[in-house]
């Protein structure tokens, strides 16, 4: 069983502070949906409103079409996986997993059977009688997932459950989580500040900042067509160029920056004279070796290089002490630079987006 989740103009206030401001979205049945944003952006508050630990100040949370107002977390068809997992340290692994069944009055024999099934689903066969403290970080993670799945929730809520793991294990668990979600087929709602997690696992992502949902779309769409300067700068690396619009034609706009006139896609319908910012991804920048006067060419001074294995980042002097980052695949074709070299970089207008001026994500 799986259910859709609707947030119908949900606003949540704590005193004067608005934690979530008019969130309005629908998560489909069986979807892997992520809320992505920096800490304090309100994503955990949304999760608590869906799981039932708090009710919205305004608006409705609906699960499977049913208004959840006033229904406690123990009565909702949701299960929550906590950031610190919150496994019960005094119970065995099997008892942890079967706790939700114990609550529902399932017989001891049935509980053990179900726990064993879930242990094999999460690749923990034979670990049922151990104490949680005897397991490794990744195994505990899987116990938490099994414990939540045991109650057969229609919606599984995950509050940054991978943040305590080391990088390798985290990447492994991403694939595993996604695989488990496909197997059980229920709705997963995932909270994270880690864009890598959101991009790799989710069907769709809602990017949040300061209580406001900035954009809801697929990972690729958010990456290629960010809706706001916050999204453009928070998801992935991006190079901003500030200025005002001088010219608009068809789908493109020309923005006058300190590096000259630059052209990019104008999806937001900006008019000449508007304050705007153009974003171009480091991997969309290329080194322009020929001295010809091409469109979208910038000349700047190389500050340094960073070699990262598959890619090499070259940092140029940008505006207001900020860097311009250019990333090249390390295939031996791009030349090396020394500090202080001058170079020309260019980008195709179709890869650049021009957005109305707005706050960026802090680095």
């Amino acid at each position, binding site marked *: 069983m799986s259910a859709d989740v609707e947030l119908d103009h949900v606003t949540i206030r704590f005193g004067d502070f608005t934690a979530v401001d008019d969130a309005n979205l629908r998560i489909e049945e069986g979807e892997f949906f992520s809320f992505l944003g920096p800490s304090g952006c309100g994503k955990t508050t949304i999760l608590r409103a869906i*799981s*039932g*630990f708090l009710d919205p100040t305004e608006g409705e949370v609906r699960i499977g079409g049913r208004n959840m107002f006033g229904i*406690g*977390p*123990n*009565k909702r068809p*949701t*299960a*929550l996986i*906590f*950031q*610190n997992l*919150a*496994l*019960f340290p*005094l*119970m065995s692994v099997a008892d942890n997993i079967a*706790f*939700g069944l*114990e*609550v*529902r009055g399932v017989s001891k024999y049935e509980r053990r059977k179900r726990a064993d099934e879930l242990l094999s689903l999460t690749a923990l066969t034979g670990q049922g009688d151990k104490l949680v403290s005897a397991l490794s970080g990744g195994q505990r993670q899987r116990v938490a997932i099994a*414990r*939540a799945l045991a*109650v057969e929730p229609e919606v599984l809520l995950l509050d940054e459950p991978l943040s305590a793991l080391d990088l390798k294990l985290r990447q492994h668990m991403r694939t595993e989580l996604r695989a488990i979600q496909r197997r059980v087929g229920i709705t997963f709602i995932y909270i994270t500040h880690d864009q890598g997690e959101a991009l790799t696992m989710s069907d769709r992502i809602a990017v949040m900042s300061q209580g406001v949902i900035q954009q809801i779309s697929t990972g690729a769409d958010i990456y290629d067509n960010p809706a706001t300067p916050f999204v453009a700068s928070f998801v992935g690396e991006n190079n901003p160029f500030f200025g005002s619009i001088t010219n608009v034609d068809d789908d493109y706009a020309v923005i006058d920056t300190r590096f000259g006139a630059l052209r990019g896609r104008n999806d937001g319908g900006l008019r000449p004279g508007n304050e705007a910012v153009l974003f171009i991804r480091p991997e969309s920048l290329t080194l322009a070796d020929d001295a010809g006067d091409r469109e979208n060419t910038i000349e700047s001074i190389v500050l340094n290089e960073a070699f990262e294995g598959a890619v090499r980042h070259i940092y140029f002097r940008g505006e207001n002490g900020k860097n311009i980052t250019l990333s090249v695949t390390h295939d031996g074709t791009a030349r090396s630079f020394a500090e202080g070299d001058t170079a020309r970089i260019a980008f195709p207008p179709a890869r650049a987006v021009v957005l109305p001026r707005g706050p960026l994500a802090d680095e």
Partner: protein
Amino acid sequence: MNDYIGIFLAVLLALLVAPHAQRRADVTWDAVSRIKFVQRNGVALSTYLILAVLIWVVFMIILPQLYMVNFSFRHNLPLADVGGPKDTLTLDNYRYLLFGRENDEELLNWLHLKIFFKTIGVSVLVTIADFAICYPIAYYMAQVARGGGARLLVLCLIIPFWVNEILRAFAFRILFGTSGVINAVLIGLGITDQGIDFLRADVGLYAGLTYAYILLMIFPLYNAIESLDHNQIEAARDLGSSWLRIHRRVVMPHAKPGIASGCTMVFMLVAGALAAPQILGGPSSLWFTQVIYQWFFTGLNWPQGSAYAFVLLATSIVFVMSVMRVFKVRFGEIAK
């Protein structure tokens, strides 16, 4: 003349022994300075800690108690006979608690035994009552209340205990007396037309004992519950658990050492209480400590008093240990 030879020999011996003793001291000193405890705390602090604990335990606890144990196996003799031929070891004092006077009609000393079992039984009930009262308060303070509210609650709990025990006990007399506050209210409401004698029924005593040790229950419980990760409570709730089950399966197992420590302390102190029973006890009922008190100060029979006191102590310890065993609490845990 003998004296001089003695002094001479002593000096000679000292000279012979001194170099050896010096060497031994060096070796000992070496061994001492290698002990972790000494390294960590330094010589001065280590010496102080060891001496202080030693003096406390040996001179203030073990020796006087041993003295009293010895007392309990002696006859109650006039001072002149102490150490004389009549001063022999005996079990008479213990026998008396069980069987009373030898030529008594009744087989057992029911008068004292009843008081003894009542004391133990009521102490258990008072401990349970304290736990029932304190657990919700401690849980609220530890997991629900935030900042200022929790601090205010702690103050409200502590400040009444600045009033001394005797005064508090007398206050309970005023509350529970025949013409006391509670009776005045009951009469005023028309529930009863003449005052109920709560003190004769020992209600005042039980209430007073329950109140007297509330803090000793609350704080161990609070400390134990406070260290529980709130997410565990929320996780249990999220998995569909009722509040009752959350407490039974998550909070109480976690707080078990605190529960054990609070219950042990309250039980021991209630069983050994004297002031509250003296002031609040009904005229016809005695607390076992009052019997002990009477042996010492009215009967002037210290051996008999010691024997009674030891039976109470031993029973309390055995009782506490068996209860801990039943609830699978290890002894070390209550010191957490």
